[in-house]
């Protein structure tokens, strides 16, 4: 027999259910613009009908339902889509960040414009030509000094700007690591709360949303991998190691690396192992800091040191108006402890090697002569270059320059062979020749074979060098390149005139006269000297290649960034169409639920009327 008050009870359930639905609709509307919020939906379910199978079963036809109840409140979210967004997001953030840093480097070079290194360089070379035209004139000398000064200031400035970009990246890395640590902590805490409500059978929709939002942020920083399979433990990995495991989390830490100019490595706090990054903003930061910007600085340094050495080598040969000779035009600042290149490579306080940047052979050669010698040159990393009797010198040099060794060789305008370092370390590592090419023919080394080999790993190796040499310059030549004091203080010292050696000691000691601008002309010719810097032939080309390379990498980063943001935008639109709150839809629901609520209320008042009739009127 059905209870008298079944109707009221049923009406109450309906009122409660619709009220809940209206509340959820209100929640949705309130959070329509909340970041990371997913639309929630109420699932109604009919209440189990009164029906107990058994002997006491009421013998009535059919079952009478017992009304409605709220089964669950679900959020509309597609987790597969979510994972795709995470995967795309870390690629996007990588290129977005990279594009920004390369952009800053491009701004430093300030090309194309009339106020860049290239334009100052043009004026610098021209000022030497002008000096060659008027070697006696102070005005022409002043102009050489001014442009020399401007050129070194430009290099100093570029170095400073590039270095400060690198420092900014370092600061960003520090900030990002702090953020990642905080995200890991928050996710772990959320995990604990989520687990508690899940085990109580609830759907912690808002907590899930919040966690998804944090994870999305994390995905922008690093290449994370999410483990959702274990109900009890939500996992977040970076590069195969877990950052978050349920309510447990790991932290990252920074360690300054002395081999990388004090820039930090990112390590796991627990075991000190290196964080394995594949993409995401953090990876972009490290790549920009340790590859892009480092290469930029290395290139500016290489340019500065080559320019300095080539101009100085010619300048020392010339004579000033005050008849001074043997002076440098740019200041030289050796890194070594003495003039023979002894250097402390492992920084233990004792010299342990010989650091030479450049060696110039003592003999005068013609590059296209057949050398008529047999032998093998051994360079760093065991790279060997063999030469035979019928080779010309220039053929051998081309082979050396293409051998990927860390030295480059060329014959300068005076016909001497120049061997110079072409690695960022700015010192020659190994030179050995089984034949007589390096020793007798070009006069670079004193003896051939292993006994005469030059190797940077021992002190005093400069005694094995036969020609003149330049010891390793101090770190970052572009940061300290400046005019030599003599030139800076007295323009008469600028060596425009050529001279001759009268007493046979190999040093020119008699000027060809104030009207001789021959040496200035030779310095102006340095710009065309095929000095093999990096993969370029001349200093100008080298700098031009640097600009073009920077531009190309900038263009790549920007187009990758654009493409990926398009993909992410589309995916996010897709997500919005699933999870986003549509006000119209919510309003329709509101009207629907409101009507349901009103109908339930009407039902209760009808049942009330029936009971009123039954109880009060039947007397």
């Amino acid at each position, binding site marked *: 027999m059905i209870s008298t008050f079944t109707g009221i009870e049923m009406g109450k359930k309906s009122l409660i259910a619709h009220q809940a639905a209206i509340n959820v609709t209100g929640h949705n509307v309130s959070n329509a613009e909340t970041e990371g919020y997913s639309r929630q939906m109420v699932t109604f379910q009919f209440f189990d009908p009164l029906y107990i199978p058994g002997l006491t079963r009421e013998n009535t036809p059919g079952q009478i339902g017992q009304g409605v109840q709220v089964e669950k409140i679900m959020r509309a979210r597609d987790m597969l889509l979510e994972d795709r967004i995470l995967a795309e997001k870390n690629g996007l953030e990588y290129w977005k960040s990279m594009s920004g840093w390369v952009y800053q480097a491009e701004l430093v070079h300030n090309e194309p414009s009339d106020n860049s290194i290239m334009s100052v360089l043009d004026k610098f070379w021209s000022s030497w030509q002008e000096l060659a035209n008027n070697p006696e004139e102070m005005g022409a000398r002043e102009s050489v000094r001014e442009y020399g000064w401007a050129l070194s200031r430009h290099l100093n400035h570029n170095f400073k700007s590039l270095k400060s970009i690198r420092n900014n990246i370092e600061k960003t890395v520090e900030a990002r690591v702090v953020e990642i640590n905080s995200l890991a902590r928050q996710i772990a805490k959320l995990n604990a709360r989520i687990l508690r409500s899940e085990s109580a059978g609830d759907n912690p929709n808002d907590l899930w949303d919040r966690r998804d939002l944090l994870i999305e942020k994390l995905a922008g920083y690093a290449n994370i991998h999410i483990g959702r399979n274990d109900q009890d433990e939500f996992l977040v990995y970076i590069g195969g190691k877990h950052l978050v495991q349920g309510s447990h989390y790991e932290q990252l830490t920074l360690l300054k690396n002395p081999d990388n100019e004090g820039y930090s490595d990112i390590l796991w706090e627990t075991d000190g192992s290196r964080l394995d990054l594949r993409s995401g903003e953090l990876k972009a930061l490290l790549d920009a800091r340790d590859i892009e910007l480092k290469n930029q600085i290395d290139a500016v340094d290489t340019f500065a040191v080559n320019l300095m050495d080539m101009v100085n080598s010619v300048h020392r040969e010339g004579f000033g108006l005050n008849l001074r000779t043997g002076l440098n035009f740019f200041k030289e600042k050796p890194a070594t402890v003495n003039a023979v290149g002894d250097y402390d490579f492992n920084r233990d306080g004792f010299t342990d090697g010989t650091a030479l940047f450049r060696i110039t052979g003592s003999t005068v050669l013609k590059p296209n002569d057949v050398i008529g010698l047999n032998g093998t040159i051994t360079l760093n990393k065991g790279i060997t270059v063999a030469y035979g009797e019928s080779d010309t010198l220039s053929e051998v040099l081309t082979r050396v320059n293409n051998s990927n060794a860390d030295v480059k060789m060329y014959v300068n305008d005076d016909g001497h062979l120049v061997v110079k370092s072409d690695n960022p370390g700015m010192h020659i590592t190994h030179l050995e020749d089984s034949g007589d090419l390096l020793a007798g023919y070009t006069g670079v080394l004193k003896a051939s074979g292993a006994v005469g080999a030059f190797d940077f790993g021992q002190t005093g190796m400069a005694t094995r060098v036969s020609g003149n040499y330049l010891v390793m310059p101090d770190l970052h030549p572009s940061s300290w390149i400046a005019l030599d004091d003599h030139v800076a203080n007295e323009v008469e010292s600028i060596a425009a005139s050529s001279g001759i050696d009268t007493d046979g000691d190999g040093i020119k000691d008699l000027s060809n006269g104030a009207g001789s601008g021959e040496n200035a002309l030779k310095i102006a010719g340095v710009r065309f000297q095929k000095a093999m810097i990096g993969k370029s032939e001349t200093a100008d080309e080298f700098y031009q290649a640097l600009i073009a390379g920077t531009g190309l990498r900038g263009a790549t980063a*920007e187009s990758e960034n654009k493409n990926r943001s398009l993909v992410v935008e589309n995916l996010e639109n897709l997500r919005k169409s699933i999870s986003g709150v549509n006000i119209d839809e919510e309003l329709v629901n509101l009207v629907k639920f409101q009507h349901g609520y009103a109908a339930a209320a009407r039902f209760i008042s009808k049942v009330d009327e029936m009971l009123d009739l039954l109880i009060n009127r039947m007397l």
Partner: protein
Amino acid sequence: MMGDNLISINRKNSEKMLNAQNSIATGLKHRMPREGPVEVSHTIAYKRALFELGQYEKNIDDGLSRINMAEGALTSGTEILQRIRELGVQGANGIYTAGDRAKIATEIDELLRELVTIANTKFKGKALFGGTDTLEDPFRVKTAFSKAAGRDVIDTVEYYGDLGKQKREIAQGDTLAVNVPGNELFWAENSSLFSSVDARNYVVSADSKVLINGVPVVFKAGDNIEMIVNRINNAPVPVRASVNRMNGGIILETSSARDIWVQDVEGSSVMQDIGVVSGPNPPKNLSPTARFFGGTLFDMVIRLRDSLYMNDSEDTGSRALGGMDLAIENILKYRTDLGAKSSRLQIVKSRITQDKTSIEDILSKNEDVDITEAVTKLKMLEVAHRAALGVTARVIQPTLLDFLR
């Protein structure tokens, strides 16, 4: 969601429009290397080429003005020489008396002073005919009292400049000397030098290098006098060497009118040993024991003047006037030479002007915005932007809220 999409589309449109406006405003296609890495690197190369050509043009202009100046000086020099020659011809005429000749000689002495001034011509305050020794007058005059003239006359005119060439780069690696040193220009006779040192048993003790008229000649240890002569004759020097059969001394002779300059360098002493020079560095280092023949243009004028003072009309008519002819001939030779250089420079200059025009054209194509195209593009973007904004305004308006009470 629709709103978000419209926002992002509008943002992209604005960005494109900003770019289009920027390129119209600056007139440049690319403002950053990333906007066209290859074009930007070409722009740099073209600009550099333009700058270089501009410098070569300046070098040529400098060279041309020097040459013009020198040509001007030589023109008036030639006129004076012609005048002196006419006076000489007049003086050789037998009808003149000794007094007449002395007057002519005095006029010649005045003209000679003028010639020396021309030889010391300055360009921008620097000696034009001193080789690369430009700070002081290349020709220095010594005067002495002449009884015949009854006053101080020019006794000697000596050259203190050097052989240096002032080179101008007129194309990459291509240089041209734009000066002629005074000891070639103002010379009249071939020079010759007879050493008085017997070198038949002389052997070069160590590898040595000497400069003969500025050209290096290298002797090897063990060379005898024959080898020395051979090496000099095989080198590209304007001097012929031979051995004097009379005394075994070396003889040096120039092949054209110019001075002999010998310099022992890099510690060599060969030329000193065989009695050619007494000191290492010219000028005035030729050995006093050697006999030297050959005269400058000034020597020729002085000889003519003195023969007039001495009233030796026969010498005036033959040897002295002959010397004048040599002097005029030599100057004319270098005038032709300078004229040829000048026209070569003009040709190179006009080629540079052409090159500059064509590079400027390429540069403009490479970096300048086609304004018509850019404006059309901007207009199209504007239309699209307007449409997007219009749609945004329309789409956002109606919601169900508008219809609910």
